[in-house]
């Protein structure tokens, strides 16, 4: 059963060659791993998943006012010619309290901010803004989470940067921390 006598030199060479195939395949994988390691995105900060909505116009929605005396919010209100922020928040959301000072800071820097209050009641929203500050121009009441779903947002707080034509430029997931304020200001400036 050893090497068959009728095997000619060519088949023998062929057989020798085939034995190297596993190593060649492995080498391809190694090259690929090296590429991924040295040129791919491996730092977690870069891995924030970009929303598919970035570059898209705001989806259609139209929300009733959340507070008496303050206008509600619809997607048509956003194409004002000036870039602005749309902030999803709720009075029952703890990180929203954490980001409130940053929103106030943005407001003081002259940024126009609209809000969508998610699954909330007017009296709670009122109390929240009394206590933690009120940076908003318009506040829409998203009682059924419909705007939230239309925007593919997964939770509160979440903030969208919208340009003058009502097109989404950036989606910020989670609370705005002090270090995010310059980034957002830059994004707003870039959308001008």
């Amino acid at each position, binding site marked *: 059963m050893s090497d068959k006598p009728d095997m000619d030199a060519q088949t023998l060479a062929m057989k*020798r060659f085939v034995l190297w195939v596993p*190593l060649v395949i492995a080498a391809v994988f*190694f090259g*690929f*791993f090296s590429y991924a*390691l040295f040129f*791919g995105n491996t730092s977690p900060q870069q891995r924030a998943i970009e929303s598919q909505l970035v570059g898209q116009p705001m989806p259609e929605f139209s929300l009733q006012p959340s507070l008496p005396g303050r206008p509600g919010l619809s997607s048509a209100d956003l194409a004002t010619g000036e870039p602005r922020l749309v902030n999803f928040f709720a*009075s029952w959301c703890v990180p929203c309290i954490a980001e409130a000072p940053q929103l106030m800071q943005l407001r003081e820097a002259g940024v126009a901010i609209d809000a969508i209050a998610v699954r909330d*009641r007017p009296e*709670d929203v009122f109390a929240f803004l009394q206590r933690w500050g009120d940076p908003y121009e318009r506040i829409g009441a998203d009682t059924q989470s419909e705007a939230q779903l239309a925007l593919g947002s997964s939770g509160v707080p979440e903030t969208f940067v919208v340009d003058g034509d009502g097109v989404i430029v950036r989606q910020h997931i989670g609370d705005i921390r002090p270090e995010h304020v310059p980034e957002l200001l830059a994004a707003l400036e870039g959308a001008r």
Partner: protein
Amino acid sequence: MIAETGLAALWLAAALCGLQLVFGVMALRSDDSGVATAIRPVAVVQGILTALAFAMLIWLFLRTDLSVELVAANSHSAKPWLYKFAGTWGNHEGSMLLWVAILAASGSLVAIFERRLKEKTLIATLAAQSAIGLGFYAFLLFASNPFARLSPAATEGRGLNPLLQDPGLAFHPPTLYFGYVGISIAFSFAVGALITRDVGPVFARAMRPWILASWIFLTLGIAAGSYWAYYELGWGGWWFWDPVENASLMPWLAATALLHSVTVLATRDALRAWTIMLAVVAFSMSMVGTFLVRSGVLTSVHAFAVDPRRGTFILALLILYIGGALALYALRVGTVREGSRFEFMSREGALVVNNVLLSAILGIVLIGTLYPLGVEAVTGEQLSVGPPYFNATAGPLALLLVAAMAVGPLLRWRRDEWRNVLGRISLPALISSLALFALVMFASPIGILPMLGLILAAGVGAASLAPLWKRNLRRTPLFTYGMVIAHLGIAVSMAGMAFESAFSEEVLVAVRPGDTHQVGPYTVTFDSTRPVAGPNWTAVEAGLTVRRGEGEPSSLAPQARMFSSPQTETSEAAIRTAWNGQLYTVLGNGDGSGRWQLRLWWKPFVTLIWFGGILIAFGGLLSLVGRVRRERKSMERESWA
């Protein structure tokens, strides 16, 4: 001093590992028997030293010694002791130390117990094991030192990822590692056999128990990991095709194929080159998995220890070991004589089908796991490959594999007749048709994969018992029982998967106290919520009253937990297990006005998935004991002769 003792033990072990390699090479070059006899004790002491180093690390974690960087970064004084203990390997450095400890322990076990293998091949095997060891000692000591001091010492630790604070996870990683790293023995055996050109039945019989042992641990580790993900992540799924899960599945697939091909080699002296190749591939998959998970090139829900610099180090080790073994394979396997031939319709033929299908599934899983990397490299787009791909590609092959598994054990070695085979599988085939009939007549329409899964599970369950048919049960060898039980376990597990995916019911509701919902055979009433506190978390706990039909009501209490260090929320599912399935309840967010999100699942026969896994591992254990006992007997007989 504890940390310094651990570090010293580790350095000593590394030195001994180097010595083991030098001795091995010397003994192979000349016939110096002095060096050859020294290699076994060196391997044993090396194993003991790494075990000592690991024990020191456990001690540091139990004491929460915050002057050690690793402890400060991953532990917390308020943590329950079990998680301080398990926290030892719940981080990169600690788990790499466990890796190395198991690698060294495997080497010393081979040095102590392996008597069957030719002396030269054994020396080559131990040399290969130490060559692997050296690289990983270097990695540990230079790039991931677990004993590094922190000065000044921290006042409090940063805590362990709450998802890992679970009794199941205390023991899942060590179990998985024993399999993952234990399979390195097969790799070293293969390298050893290539060096001495000693590939044959004796080699295969010597290697088989080691493969079986690590395969049992892999099986248990995967089953435990799957159950952990099922109840701890609160998503109600038992397999997510996550890169880390795939990283443990790939060595299992290769080891399963190896287990079957090594039997062909041991019994019939065929598939020599292929068996060697599989042994190399199995451990290569372990190393590739470690690389993918640790380097951060893939994102994963499990990726809790990511560092690209370490990735470079592991990649270098990968290239060295896998590349080296494959180059040796290319140079040497041509000189290994071809084994015996056989007909397709034979036990060997069926085992080849098993190997081809397992390898194909392995390829599919590997490509699916790496595909996102490839796409990102070419187009820069980020995507993830999930169940739709894996189920559609690996699913049908797995079903084919299981069908082949029903027939394989009923075939004779060397050559068999189609007619006889058909006779032997007629009863299982009948049972499958009855299952098909019952599903079509009595069940609501279900997907094609679960449907085929259920039909096959019924037939295969019967077929797996068929090898015992008309045999003297008391004289049937233990390893035949092992095979029967392991194959039965596959059928049981598959039945669980098919039932779960075909007949699960899910209800997602927003409830107020007093609301009642129906899911499966249960009515669930939401009574109240109350705050509860644990040692390092607070939670909102829902009080649910659960009633099955007209039976006695009982209560379940799912929690939404907030951990204080690090700050994380987890959901603790509450599960009621019945003989025919599980009620799985998860508490979601409140809306602030007294309504709470509640997710309820009825999962019929879902427990069969893990029960099957335990059966598979138990079958493996019976085979292992049976094989070892028979070897021992035949060795005794030889020494008498």
